[in-house]
């Protein structure tokens, strides 16, 4: 026995999973939605995603003084998610500024991966919405042109389905599900997002409680307060789930590990809270869509949620407080 034996505390075997493999799985999960974005919005979509991912990775590598651009993969995830919540018409400089803000203000100023309070991609989105609303709010949304890769989709724009009842009624529930509607790159196709979500669930990277609580709450409130168009209150509920950013928000943003609760009950509360605030903004707020701010607000209360939802340990009894 000439070798130096390693002596360490048990356990002595570890899963092969790493932060990098988790992030890679998230990128794989986003692939169907990215593909749909390119199919619907053409080269502009591809360009936006490439610029955003590249900017995010470069800024993070520069900030951390690392030569490895991909590193743990988290910057690529943030960059891709940020691109996913932009319209294909977003100018390149807006993509660059937003992606850089996501990484710097959303993540690195807090101490980098694991320490950020807010979802970095949504911080970036909030900043660009507040600063250059003209590019992101109103009748600015390119009309999808399936399979027309080289067409500049920004030529024809319209409002999203959430702008009002008459806009909503121009699309069928099937359009909403497949994604051939105006909207952000990654948010339109519920089908593609669900595919990725199933993959993430299968890999154990997301818990059902956050998407379940989020989507369930939006559906229920949509049924009750949605206004009952489509001739059926349940279809209105479904409309609220499929239109706008609820699907991408519930499956990819609200499930961001770092900025959400770790307790099982906390996750459910987080999801329900996101759904509640989203619908408050949609129904009674001035903005047509509320997913971004719903998630950011819930991110802020995550530590409090964790504190109040410490699970009962095995064989434990509730203390009479």
């Amino acid at each position, binding site marked *: *026995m000439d*070798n130096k*034996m*390693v*002596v*360490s*505390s*048990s*356990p*002595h*075997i*570890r*899963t092969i*999973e*790493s*932060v990098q*493999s*988790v992030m890679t799985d998230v990128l794989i999960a986003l692939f169907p939605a990215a593909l749909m974005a390119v199919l619907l919005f053409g080269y502009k979509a591809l360009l936006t995603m490439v610029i955003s991912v590249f900017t995010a990775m470069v800024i993070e590598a520069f900030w951390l003084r690392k030569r490895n651009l991909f590193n*743990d993969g*988290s910057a690529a995830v943030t960059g891709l998610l940020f691109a996913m919540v932009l319209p294909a018409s977003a100018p390149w400089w807006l993509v660059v500024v937003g992606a850089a803000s996501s990484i710097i203000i959303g993540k690195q100023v807090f*101490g*980098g*991966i*694991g*320490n950020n309070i807010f979802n970095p991609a949504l911080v970036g989105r909030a900043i660009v919405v507040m600063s250059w609303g003209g590019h992101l709010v109103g009748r600015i949304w390119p009309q999808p042109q399936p399979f027309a890769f080289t067409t500049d989709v920004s030529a024809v724009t319209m409002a999203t389905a959430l702008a009002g009842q008459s806009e909503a009624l121009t699309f069928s529930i099937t359009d909403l599900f497949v994604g051939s509607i105006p909207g952000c790159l990654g948010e339109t196709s519920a089908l593609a997002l669900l595919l990725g979500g199933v993959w993430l669930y299968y890999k*154990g*990277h997301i*818990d059902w409680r956050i998407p379940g609580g989020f989507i369930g709450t939006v559906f229920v409130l949509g049924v009750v307060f949605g206004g009952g168009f489509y001739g059926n209150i349940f279809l209105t509920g479904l409309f609220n789930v499929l239109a706008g950013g609820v699907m991408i928000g519930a499956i990819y943003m609200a499930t961001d*590990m*770092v*900025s*959400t609760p*770790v*307790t*099982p009950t906390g*996750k459910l509360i987080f999801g329900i809270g996101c759904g509640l605030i989203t619908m408050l903004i949609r129904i009674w707020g001035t903005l047509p869509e509320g997913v971004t701010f719903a998630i950011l607000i819930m991110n802020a209360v995550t530590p409090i949620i*964790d504190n109040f939802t*410490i*699970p*009962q*340990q*095995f*064989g*434990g*009894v509730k203390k009479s407080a």
Partner: protein
Amino acid sequence: MSGTIFKGGVHPDDHKELTEAMSVNPMKAPSTVFVPLQQHIGAPCEPLEGIAVGVQVKVGQKIADSGSFVSAPIHATVSGTIKEIGPFNHPLGRPVQTITIESDGKDEWDDQIKPAGELEKLSAEDLRKLIRAAGIVGLGGATFPAHVKLSPPPDKKIDVVIINGAECEPYLTADHRVMLEMPEKIVYGLKAMIKALDAEVGIIGIEDNKQDAIAVMQSAIAGEDQLKVVPLHTKYPQGAEKMLIQVTTGRKVPSGGLPLEVGVVNHNVGTAVAINNAIKEGKPLIERVLTVTGSGINRPANLLVRIGTLVSEVIEECGGLKDNTRKLIIGGPMMGLAQPHANLPVIKGTSGILVLTDEDVCLSESVTCIRCAKCVESCPVSLLPTLIAQAAEHNLFDKAEKLHALDCFECGCCSYVCPSKIPLTQLIRIAKAEIMKAKKK
């Protein structure tokens, strides 16, 4: 019937294929044994009067004991001459008072050793006495003296005895082989425990990755109405007593409590065999079955080894080590103890010797927690490992206690699943030690 499923847990690769098909081979008694005087939880033993350097002893002769109830006597495991009594290396890390016996090669048994008689004729008290006298401790690894578990306080009625054949630790196959090769001894030992406790039911819990053992045990209990074999879902830590009790009986051991509080006593299959041997042959615990395995061992095997045999000799028996070995573990990979060298003895609780090579040893540094909560999902006792570890890192032990750190039984699932490779279990151990220290003040 089949066991239910407990919450949490992990599914590591079990690597049991290395040894599960190999029958237990008795290893020749070594020329020298190193018998530590502390091989159990409880008071250490003292050498008996007349046991000193130069004295001749025989196999099975009692050489050390303690006046304390929670303790188990120690017996000579070879016949020969006592060479030394003094501190020697021990799997727990600190040197322990140890009796070194040089074998005379004759392997002569102590002539006082004789069968204790028929189980029917022995009273519960007789059983407890002879089990203590045989030095039997929990052979699953925890080494709690067996007679103590069989002596519940009078106000606690024990109705169920569970034999733990889960063997949920990856790599280890000793219990598996014991079940295949000595099923009738396990059943006999179990019946003795039931008698000692005046219990009603005996359950043998076996993970369903050992279908052959389930079948063998099922036929071994045929016709015994009070006994049953319960196949268990294969998931680590299925063999942890709280999990095992929950899935086989539906009872939940209270936080901080013992199984006897829900009317259950748990014993390992090896312990049942030791009790069988003590009654039928009068044999004290001088040898045990262990698995020698891992990618660093040339010829993995299941061996019957005398207590006090050097680990290095056991490894030699198995063809020695491969060149790129990096870790030597006494026990399994999830809860075993890593050792700096092999110059230490096999003790009563040594269920396995595991040697891992570079490929199997994770040496990557930990990175920041990404709050993925995989540790939370994996925790079988519903703790928040990452938050306890964080509190421990910041010396916030009050906070760690509020997060129920003391309920952790150190199964290692949280560290295993952590993608950031944070040594969560180790940090929680630190928190537990500090909390206990503060309580003692």
